[in-house]
């Protein structure tokens, strides 16, 4: 049987092509929004995944270190390191900074880690070398705008980019730079000289009268005001075969800190940080799909109305309802099919240039294809209904 839908389209393809392109652009935006959401989720959890830890220990009653502030002593890593089941520990600090780099504001996320311990460092080095010295080395995300050998002054010191790592970003999408924990603590906690002098004086005054006679108030105040041995989280690696949840429970029960397993930490990040973005993007996607459906509906309905006489003639010469329905539904499906692949091609060519990370997941794209095809069938209903109502007598007369 002659494929009437294809014959009609190929006879006057211009309108079909333009419509496909327009709907393809809409579908491209739908794909991009899905990809941006996936990017949000991926960005939110990439540090948790890359750290290689099984348990995240943070300040009690907080959802730290990403969703809430958390400050705990660095030496907790030693205490937790001897808990049953713990094979490795690491102390990490996190801080977002904004610098002016080459005349432009640049937001960066500093991760401080101990290179001598196994946890928390850059997942890979794609250029240069890892951090080998205790001070003034840094490894930067290659998308941070920093290059090997660049020097960056943070606080009172200048740091050199000695290595570049992959696209590791903070939960907010800011590129990560890695430093030694000592350097990161200095950047985060060390005060300038004037502030140190003021703090020291204030503490000295507060301590006077509280300390026993003969105590050196000056030295005590000095030690307290200069303490930078604070971290945002201590991470634990659990021995193979030992229940991670038991380690987390032990930490909470005996050490009075909050402990999250990796899935719990990921839930906090995805549910808390990206939930609104997910809903927002989801709503936009639904709206765009409805708009696409309305356009396809209108186009197919208009095309059907343009063919009323031909449909009446076909009915008069005995064409079945199925022949008529197929003509309309097939055109709608072809419209959706080509529009989808146009959108698919455009997003694959452009997703790298989006300001935020776009992660195209095959499952999402396949699901969208099925949805688009379903929408096309639905959108053809108005056209089909009108076509089936056409009276064959319409073919008679001039």
């Amino acid at each position: 049987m002659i494929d009437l839908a294809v014959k009609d389209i190929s006879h006057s393809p211009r309108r079909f092509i333009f419509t496909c392109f327009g709907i393809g652009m809409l579908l491209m935006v739908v794909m991009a929004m899905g990809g941006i959401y996936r990017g949000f989720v991926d960005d939110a959890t990439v540090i948790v995944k890359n750290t290689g830890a099984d348990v995240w220990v943070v300040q009690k009653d907080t959802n730290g270190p990403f969703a809430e502030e958390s400050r705990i002593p660095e030496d907790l890593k030693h205490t937790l390191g001897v808990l049953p089941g713990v094979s490795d520990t690491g102390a990490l600090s996190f801080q977002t900074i904004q610098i002016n780099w080459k005349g432009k504001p640049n937001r960066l996320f500093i991760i401080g880690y101990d290179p001598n311990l196994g946890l928390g460092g850059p997942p890979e080095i794609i250029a240069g070398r890892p951090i080998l010295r205790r001070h003034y080395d840094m490894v930067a995300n290659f998308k941070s705008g920093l290059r090997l050998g660049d020097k960056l002054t943070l606080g009172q010191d200048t740091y050199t980019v000695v290595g570049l790592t992959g696209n590791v970003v903070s939960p907010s999408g800011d590129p990560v730079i890695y430093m030694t924990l000592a350097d990161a603590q200095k950047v985060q906690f060390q005060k300038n000289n004037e502030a140190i002098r003021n703090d020291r004086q204030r503490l000295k005054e507060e301590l006077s009268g509280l300390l026993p006679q003969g105590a050196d108030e000056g030295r005590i105040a000095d030690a307290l005001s200069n303490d930078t041995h604070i971290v945002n989280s201590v991470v634990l690696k659990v021995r193979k075969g030992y229940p991670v949840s038991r380690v987390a429970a032990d930490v909470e029960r005996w050490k009075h800190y909050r402990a999250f397993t990796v899935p719990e930490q990921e839930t906090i990040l995805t549910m808390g940080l990206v939930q609104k973005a997910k809903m927002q993007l989801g709503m936009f996607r639904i709206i765009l799909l409805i708009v696409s459906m309305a356009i396809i509906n209108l186009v197919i309905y208009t095309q059907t109305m343009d063919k009323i006489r031909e449909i009446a003639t076909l009915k008069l010469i005995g064409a079945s309802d199925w022949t008529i329905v197929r003509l309309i539904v097939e055109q709608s499906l072809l419209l959706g099919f080509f529009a989808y692949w146009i959108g698919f091609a455009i997003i694959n060519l452009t997703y790298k240039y989006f300001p935020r990370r776009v992660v195209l997941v095959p499952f999402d794209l396949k699901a969208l294809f099925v949805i688009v095809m379903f929408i096309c069938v639905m959108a053809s209903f108005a056209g089909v209904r009108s076509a089936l109502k056409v009276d064959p007598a319409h073919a008679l007369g001039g």
Partner: protein
Amino acid sequence: MKEVVRVEGLRKVYGSGETEVVALSDANMTLREGEVSAVLGPSGSGKTTMLMCLGCIVEPTAGRMFIGGEEIYGDGSWKRRDLRRLRREKMGFIFQSHNLIPFLNVLENVVIASELTGVPRKEAEAGAMELLEYLEVAHRAAKFPATLSGGEMQRVAIARALVHDPSLILADEPTAALDTDRGKKVVALLKNLAKKRGVGVIVVTHDIRMVEGFDRVYHMKDGSILDE
């Protein structure tokens, strides 16, 4: 010769009460194989209603109708799809404005009528080409209708009406869009084809010049057949 169509006391009424219009009243007609009949009358005389009844497009209000000896609507069990099958298999239509499908080429316009009856593509194409050659439009087989002249389009329409070997051809003002000479040629062609293929042809027209040499001419006025 076998009877192709017979109608007895056919009546068609549109509307009811004050808006009632009697479009066809007590019409009787018989057509045999190879015969060419004309239904002649001015606008509003009921010609098109007669054609629509014969073509099973509208159901008559009263009367009996036989096509190929089979009574249509008789026991009330006829469904829309049965009527469509009847049109598809036993009837061919020729229209005033040709009604060729603009997005199909000449050959496809003819082939589709054959394919609708279930004839395989190759066989349908062979039959269509044979008819197009007979009608001297085979050289335009790959062209689209928009590039044809009025006469060529009407010959293609005739080919489409005949390609599936129907027993009845219903032609609605087939010469209205043609000049007199071309119109006469088309009528002559229909008469020849009817004799040659044993098809019954009913031509509905208002143009008295076109009915010369027809086997029967039915004059209609105000929904009634006045004389034969």
